[in-house]
């Protein structure tokens, strides 16, 4: 009897004390995104090592501009867009990490809407979510088009925002339903670009929305990135052509630790705050943006190679907001 007790106790103790060991597997070696070398028989936990299975494609988002369905009424260009809000999607926002994102047209950030100063913009908004949502556009519009006092009900509620595009520059749009922080931090935002009547010089144009996710709801971001996926552009460098003008529309939409910045290596850029003035305010390699601040950056690389860009707030950089430009003589896109 005593033996039975002792055996039971010993087995129970061993079960808890010693880890379950696996069969020895072949060791693999890999180089991490920070340059370290790991040899392991197990799995690898690295934000850029695993295959990208995320539904949000930062590469596609980077250079995608939506000009809407255009028509002409009394000599004026009318641009019509449709934006559908949803709040039930669970997406992989960093390899292996799944989070309930709230989306405009199925992605975070929502589509980049682009018009020219003076165009008539019509945005048909459909709320397919389970909560009330709106769209609040920064820029000029009438009071009743503000997206604050016109809640759009869940389950198919509709509203059409109409206004004349302006002023020229880069503006954010986002849901403006309380609690605001919750609606924005889940992903209901996007970029609205207004081109000046006299076009800016031709350039390789791209959009970078500086965002983050608080996946454990402690009012601090667990992940940061440009265009949602942490470390994405570090693993997939953005290819640009030597000598070609690059224009980036950058928007800081962070919730929580919202003082963000953009630092460029090996170069300086002309910076146009909000993009409303045609004269740059600075020639610099670093700007700092508070929540909702945005601007246009213009630069050219004259030598090929890899150049880093990242938040100079190192915490954000080390939690995903970091990437690379690959400058080449010729770019295959």
């Amino acid at each position, binding site marked *: 009897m005593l033996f039975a007790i002792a055996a039971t106790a010993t087995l129970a103790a061993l079960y808890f*004390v010693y880890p379950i060991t696996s069969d020895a597997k072949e060791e693999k070696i890999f180089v991490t995104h920070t340059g*370290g070398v790991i040899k392991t028989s*197990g799995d690898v*936990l*690295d934000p850029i090592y695993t295959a990208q299975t995320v539904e949000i494609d930062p590469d596609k988002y980077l250079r995608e501009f939506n000009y809407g369905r255009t028509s002409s009424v009394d000599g004026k260009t009318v641009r019509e867009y449709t934006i559908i809000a949803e709040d039930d999607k669970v997406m992989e926002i960093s390899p292996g*990490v799944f989070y309930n994102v709230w989306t405009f047209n199925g992605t975070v950030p929502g589509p980049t809407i682009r018009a020219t100063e003076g165009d008539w913009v019509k945005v048909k908004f459909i709320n397919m979510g389970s909560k009330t949502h709106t769209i609040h556009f920064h820029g000029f519009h009438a009071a009743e088009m503000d997206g604050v006092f016109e809640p759009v009900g869940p389950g198919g509620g509709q509203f059409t925002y109409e206004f004349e595009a302006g002023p020229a520059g880069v503006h954010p749009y986002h849901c403006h339903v309380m609690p605001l922080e919750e609606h924005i931090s889940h992903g209901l935002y996007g970029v609205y670009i207004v081109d000046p009547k006299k076009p800016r010089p031709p350039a390789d144009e791209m959009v970078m929305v500086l965002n983050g996710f608080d996946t*454990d709801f402690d009012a601090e971001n667990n992940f940061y990135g440009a265009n949602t996926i942490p470390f994405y552009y570090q693993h997939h460098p953005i290819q640009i052509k030597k000598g070609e003008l690059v224009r980036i529309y950058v928007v800081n939409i962070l919730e929580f630790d919202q003082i963000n910045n953009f630092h460029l290596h090996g170069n300086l850029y002309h910076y146009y705050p909000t993009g409303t003035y045609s004269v740059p305010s600075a020639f610099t390699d670093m700007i700092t943006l508070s929540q909702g601040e945005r601007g246009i950056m213009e630069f050219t690389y004259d030598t090929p190679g890899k150049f880093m860009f990242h938040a100079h707030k190192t*915490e954000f950089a*080390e939690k995903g907001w970091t990437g690379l430009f690959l400058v080449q003589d010729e770019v295959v896109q």
Partner: protein
Amino acid sequence: MESTKTSKAKIAAAGIIPLVLLSAMIVYLFGPGAELVNFGTPLPNITIERVDFVESEIQVTARNTGPIDVSIAQADVNDRIQPAAIEPDKHLARFETALVRIPYSWNEAEPYEIGLTINDGTRFAHSVEAAAPAIKPSIDLVSYFAVIGTYVGIIPVLIGLLWFPFIAKMSPAKYKFFLALTAGLLLFLGIDAIEEGMEISAERLSGAFNGQLLVATVVVGSFVGLYYVSEKLVSRVSSASKSVAIALMVSIGIGLHNLGEGLAIGAAIGLGEIALSTFLIVGFTIHNTTEGLAIAAPMARQKPMIAKLAAMGVIAGAPAIFGAWIGGFQYSPISAIIFLSVGAGAIFQVIVAILKWIRQDEQGLLSAPTAAGIAVGMIIMYVTSILI
């Protein structure tokens, strides 16, 4: 013959039928599609049980202590995402552990917070007050722990045994007082071990293990087990050797207790808590001289048997060495709790044995010397525990 067969079948059926009904009810209540009992979404949980600082690497042992399977997606050091390897793999079934290896050039004596993020984005963190190189078993270290164990365990117990002639020449009342004093000393040690186990359970063990109930289970289990063994042992020996048998049980009980003490010291050194380990070494050394007294007391009416006393001193003290090895090289909160609880159970068994020994006297158990002895024993231990 036929009838016994049918009756056996009937008995078996009578044993099995309630089990079948019970399983059916559990399936009905909790099985697939059951909706009667639904308390919402179960939340995942990960416990970081160990953090070892090795050459250019931080090694984290994590266990899935939640009700559902999880997969670990990311590791961080001080809340900064770090690439890492996880062995055997990143999917953890309930209670399964994995080793996360984070390449990181850490700095000695600096505090670190290690975090693991699972697939739903929840981050679990564990803080280390000061990074210290993980202890690797080596001949030097094994002998170092052996020396520590000897100083803490064997030598003080042997010093305590030197009280033997003093106790041997005492009047019956005083002798009884000293036996009761021993019981008091031991009672304190037993309570102390339980408290220590509870503390470890609260600080280092996940709630999923029900650490406090584990303490209770192991204390009771080791108590009844040792009680049974000691009864057998004492009943088999002649009455003249009964006192020796009791002293032997006392030294075994104390030995199990000292295993726990060695474990605490080894773990403190292993976890890099230098101040704590020094404190424990000094404290246990002083404390353990009283244990020699506890062994000497039951044998005080015998002729002095130096060899036997010395052997018992070693039985009581040497486990401190094993404890230090286990604690230093293979620390886990759960094994620490189990060892401490076994020690407590053993001590309570010894107390019962001593009280039974005292009761053989015509005055019975409740006499002034016994009451005073138990109380004074407790007070001595309490005071030493404060002073150290």
